[in-house]
């Protein structure tokens, strides 16, 4: 890992290369929110992901979106666990905490509750979030902390070189499962919806425009925002999503969910989702008398998560892979509720008095 020097010299062995960008001080106050650009969010660290990794696209996207969110750069904090995706904070020129495997949501909870004005982002992967981090994943979502939780799902363990993950495909041959995975995978969106997440969305690393919109929507949502990003690991699980995400097949295999619009996909915009009793089915508009009026219209604000859950279960080959915002509902966030409780405690009992605190209980005087 290259390191940066500050030009004033530091007492480290010369075997560490010291490159500095233009020799200027590394630490400078950022421009105000209205004047931020992508460059302000790029750190001086050389990015070390494998060439061709899907993470580059996501990083680029986030750096592009950040200036438009209207947040001061110093208020942004990225928290990650362990994994390739968790290297993310080093490449963002914001406050960052690269913590321990699976525990980023817990650390983020501490950060956000301590200072609710910060914009807190959790960057995690399928192993970090759903294996060791499964517990914290569920709790940060159900508590509705007002943070943004982005899960880079590459269906493999990349950093440790190729073991299977909780989202790997059944039967997949990996370093630790040479005879094939015998675990059934889990669906992150199902878990997120089951954990009562108030904003649930999904995107694809190479769909730059869509991903950017999702990141922005996640940031704008008040409450916890869960975003799953299908991310290609080209070394250990290349092409895992090609069967629907690859450009030439995408329009026929991906359903772009849009609030208020009927669920239509396909090259000719004539494949769609219709409810047949309690179950969804894929139909062709124009065949068998089906018109647009029969098509299920997407509503992200439904309080009942059943439809969102149903959409989250849709998978090839029977259904297109849905992406977009599945659900976006409003509910008071944990950090807000905590602040409210403190305010009401102060209103009720007055601000804390050490004198009263210490001089209570069974007291007596010795003359």
């Amino acid at each position, binding site marked *: *890992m290259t*390191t940066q*020097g500050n030009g004033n010299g*530091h*007492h*480290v*062995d010369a075997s*560490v290369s010291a490159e500095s960008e233009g020799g200027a001080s590394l*630490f*400078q*106050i*950022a421009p105000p929110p209205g004047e931020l650009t992508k460059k302000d969010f790029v*750190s001086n660290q050389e990015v070390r992901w494998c060439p061709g990794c899907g993470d580059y696209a996501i990083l680029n996207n986030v750096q592009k979106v950040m200036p438009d969110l209207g947040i001061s*750069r*110093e*208020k*942004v904090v990225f*928290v990650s666990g362990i994994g390739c995706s968790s290297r993310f*904070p*080093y490449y963002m020129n914001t*406050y*960052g*905490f*690269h*913590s*321990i495997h699976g*525990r980023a949501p*817990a*650390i983020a*909870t*501490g*950060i956000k509750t*301590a*200072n609710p*004005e*910060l914009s807190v982002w959790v960057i995690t992967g399928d192993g970090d979030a759903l294996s060791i981090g499964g*517990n*914290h994943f*569920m*709790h940060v979502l159900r508590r509705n902390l007002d943070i943004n939780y982005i899960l880079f799902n590459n269906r493999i363990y990349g950093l440790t070189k190729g073991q299977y993950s909780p989202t790997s495909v059944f039967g997949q041959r990996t370093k630790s499962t040479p005879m094939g995975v015998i675990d059934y995978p889990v669906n992150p969106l199902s878990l997120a919806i089951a954990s009562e997440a108030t904003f649930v969305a999904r995107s694809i690393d190479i769909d730059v425009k869509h991903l950017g919109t999702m990141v922005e929507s996640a940031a704008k949502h008040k409450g916890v925002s869960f975003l799953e990003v299908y991310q290609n690991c080209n070394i250990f699980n290349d092409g895992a999503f090609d069967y629907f995400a690859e450009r030439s097949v995408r329009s026929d295999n991906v359903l772009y969910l849009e609030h208020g619009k009927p669920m239509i996909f396909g090259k000719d915009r004539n494949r769609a989702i219709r409810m047949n009793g309690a179950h969804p089915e894929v139909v062709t508009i124009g065949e068998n008398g089906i018109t647009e009026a029969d098509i299920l219209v997407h509503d992200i604000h439904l309080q009942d998560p059943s439809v969102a859950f149903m959409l989250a279960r849709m998978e090839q080959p029977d259904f297109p892979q849905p992406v977009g915002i599945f659900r976006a509902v409003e509910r008071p966030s944990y950090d807000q509720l*905590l602040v409210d*409780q*403190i305010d009401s*405690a*102060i209103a*009720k009992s*007055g601000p*804390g008095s*050490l*004198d009263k*605190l*210490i*001089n*209570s*209980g*069974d*007291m*007596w*005087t*010795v003359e």
Partner: protein
Amino acid sequence: MSAVLEPPVETFDKQLEELDTVTIRFAGDSGDGMQLTGTQFTNTSAIVGNDISTLPDFPAEIRAPAGSLPGVSGFQLNFSNHDIRTPGDQPNVLVAMNPAALKVNLADLEEGGTIIINSDEFTKENLERAAYHSNPLEDGALSGYRVHTLPISTLNMNALKGAVELSRKEMARCKNFFALGVLYWLYDRPLEPTLNWINAKFRKNPELAKANEVALKTGYNFAETTEVFTTHYKIKKAVIAPGRYRKITGNEATAIGFVTAAELAGRTLFYGSYPITPASDILHELARHKNFGVKTFQAEDEIAAVCAAIGASFTGHVGLTGTSGPGVALKQEAIGLAVMTELPLVIINVQRGGPSTGLPTKTEQADLFQAVWGRNGECPAIVIAPATPADCFNMAIEAVRLAFKYMVPVFYLSDGYLANGAEPWAVPAIEKLPRIEVKFATDPKNFMPYARDEKTLARPWALPGTPGLEHRIGGIEKQNITGNVNYDPENHHLMVKLRQQKVDRAVADIPPVEVFGDSSGKVLVLGWGSTFGSITSAVEKMRNEGKSVSSAHLRHLNPFPGNLGEVLSSFETVIIPEMNLGQLCTMIRARYLVGAVPFSKVKGRPFQIREIVQKVEEYL
């Protein structure tokens, strides 16, 4: 109409003997109100000027059938005319309100001790429930003790029947006040403080207040006139420094201490915790202080609790987490992260019997190794331990002070005995408490995330939200000064040494250890944590007999006080009583190359004064 006996008509002279110290254990079914009784007796004793020390013994089960063995609730109190530091080695008096209470507690009573028994409860059913095959009141099992059998339930009921408008059940519940009245007479205590308390607490329920008052007075008068008691006892005031006092348990002092520490530092307290015996009370207590801005977070597990505290510390709050031994085991990886990111963090460990789930309600002090060395890699943290329940307050402030100054995790090792034991606390003057200095980085021009303070080697504390200081920290090894991820071998060696040196330098902030007694001699008894009371009392006793023994007590265990080596070498033998197999002893031997002698007791119970005396005598 009232059945209260008239002022005493003594038919014969009763003796009034003077005693220096008495230890009473009140024991009964959980529904009998022994905690209330014991607390009242304690408070009255404190008001009349005795020194006090108490230790409750809560029932083993959350709810047990009435009269059963797991339902027994006990309260031990030591009160005296001089300075005492323990709730007593063994009770002199056992008040047993039912057979189960007798069964559970008899073995602890001193030889020839006094037993006061509520004979009404020694029915066939209750004896069966207590697994007695024959009635101990009749079969000679109690022949070695002075037994006073009183039909307390009946006497209580007779006093109240017709005198108050209450149901039988409600009247029966007043029998603990009857028993209290008896004990008050026996030990020459005034009734006023308890009468005042009854009238204040139960003003919404005047019939009950009257009943309790009548029960108390009748018990007192009964004891005064009955032939069962020929002697009662007087315990004079102790010489105590004048001032305001309050009774406090270790867990209360811990909670109040950290709220105070946060106020003294001008920062918000964040407490991340997961319920675990015996530390849950700290969470309960802190959750009630939201008007101080205290943020309590009951996490989904121990790891989330400490991680949230670390996140809060990163953001400028006082990051505090509390648990017992098994919880620390889970937290260690995260504590390592705090050591590597050089953030302040305080970890409370209210130690209990281990290993594994161990004995959740019993005390032990076997987590010292875990605190000093229990993390992967070279991962030093500061370790401190309060010595008495009231000291928990001071050490809480000390923990935050050291954590902030050295930007490092601090272990605060309490234990179950301190947590639940109570003693008088001379309430401090708030203005006299020292402010805790905090400095945050603000200027981007001279900022480096891992630049080091000249004296302490601590790195700057830069809070998210501060413009211009945006930087990343994490668990991977860091380059010194810049804080960038760095795998360079020389850098790693340097950083490992720097992190160790930083903790070592905390010795500059640690007061020298004080020796109780002569500064040199044959034996030094060295201790840490809750053994303070027993050790100091034992050494005091022996010194009064002219023996060449002194004691010293460590409240800082990593680093040790700077003068410790010198103190150790001034004695022929160093004995270290510990509720573990010799953890401090091992550390002392390794560090100071002295042949310290371990004295281990791992029974889930504190050391008795005479156990220490006995051990020391072997070396005199």
